[in-house]
């Protein structure tokens, strides 16, 4: 099953939604004007996705420009509702329709940052150094505070001094991996947005 639909299919579907009459009406444009403004999604690749905001679960089509050649980093030029979805039938709210501004955003984090104790600012850190430091901190805490047996001598294997939250903005698969991650370490204090 393909997820990436080509331009022609996209137009065919959208046109169906808009009604056959509309297609005919649209062709009445005077050629001079039609040529003056090029459709900005006429050369894009479309990828089916789902809006990451609320839980209505609107399907979206992400329009990217640029192939995946060695020096080409595709960029999002437009995001629009997916007319196929029975949930949104191509519609989106003010947040969904401007998802491009979320994805392509100069405020996005693009490298790991580290703030040492007592410091007043972030410093960039390499992934490698970050993993090394974090793993050491986790291990030290776990070794020091892990509870294998409670006061009554029952095996409980828990790590009460580490808490973890998250997941509601991420996919099932990541949530499942998170459950393995936390049970592997012994973390019990785990909550997500559904508790708020």
């Amino acid at each position, binding site marked *: 099953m393909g997820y990436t639909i080509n331009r022609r299919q996209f137009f065919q579907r959208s046109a169906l*939604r808009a009604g056959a009459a509309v297609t005919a009406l649209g062709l009445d*444009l005077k050629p001079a004007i039609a040529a003056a403004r090029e459709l900005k999604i006429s050369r894009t690749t479309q990828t089916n996705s789902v809006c990451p905001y609320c839980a209505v679960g609107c399907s979206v089509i992400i329009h990217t420009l640029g192939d995946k050649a060695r020096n080409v980093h595709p960029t999002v030029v437009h995001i629009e509702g997916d007319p196929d979805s029975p949930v949104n039938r191509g519609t989106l709210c003010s947040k969904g329709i401007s998802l491009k501004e979320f994805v392509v955003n100069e405020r996005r984090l693009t490298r790991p940052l580290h703030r040492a104790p007592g410091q007043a600012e972030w410093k960039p850190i390499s992934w490698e150094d970050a993993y090394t430091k974090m793993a050491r901190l986790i291990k030290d805490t776990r070794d020091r505070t892990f509870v294998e047996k409670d006061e009554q001598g029952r095996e409980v294997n828990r790590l009460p001094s580490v808490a973890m939250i998250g997941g509601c903005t991420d996919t099932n698969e990541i949530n499942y991996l998170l459950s393995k991650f936390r049970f592997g370490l012994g973390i019990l204090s785990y909550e997500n947005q559904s508790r708020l």
Partner: protein
Amino acid sequence: MQTVAKLIDTTLCIGCKACEVACQQWNDQEYTLGVFQNTYQTMPDLAPNFWNLIKFNEAEINGAQSWLMAKYQCMHCADAGCIKACPSPGAIVQLGNGIVDFNRDNCIGCGYCITGCPFDVPRLSPKTKKVYKCSLCSDRVAVGLEPACIKTCPTSCLTFGSRTDLKFLAEKRAEELKADGFTQAGVYDGPGVGGTNVIYVLKHADQPETYGLPKDPHIPWTVSLWKGPLKWLGNAVFLGGILTAVLHFVKFGPKEEHHRG
């Protein structure tokens, strides 16, 4: 050649502003920051980079708390005041499908269209010295897509189609509202400007002002006078003046110095 139109059923508008942002996104507008003005409305008025504004109006109508929301944008008039006022041929054009579109290559930024528009819609950008307004996404319509605002509208408050069909739908909807007890419900589509290709269904069609719509829109009489009688008067003065001068010269010739002793 059928005329396309947009139907705005204000009874279904929830003020979600999806249409506002769809317009911003499709047209790659620059986003700005607003100033707080004791309202949920995004900004007080349309702007060169904001062509589609939902007007919010809290009102008590017949003793009931109401919060009226209606989208405001170019009405795509059949008899378009902006085109009438525009001096630059091809800057504003009425497409075969009824869309009133701007071709900014030809726009000279005189702003006459702003004055000519009965709905006060076009906006002049101080930055580019060009005038901007909704194009009913003529580029999308050309390839069989709906205008961005209509496609994104979650509640079907906005509908796209042929003007004839939508007028029929609008009238049917108004009848339903009347049957539901909204005796003043009706259709608003500016007969004074030959009909607008944006058609509203209003619960309180007797008070379009509460929705931020002019009561009886027509091309301003000064603009009509300017582009009508005044033009003929001017022509008469110029042509008449030159013609008279020619005739006068043929008949009387130049003044001679010896006329007086």
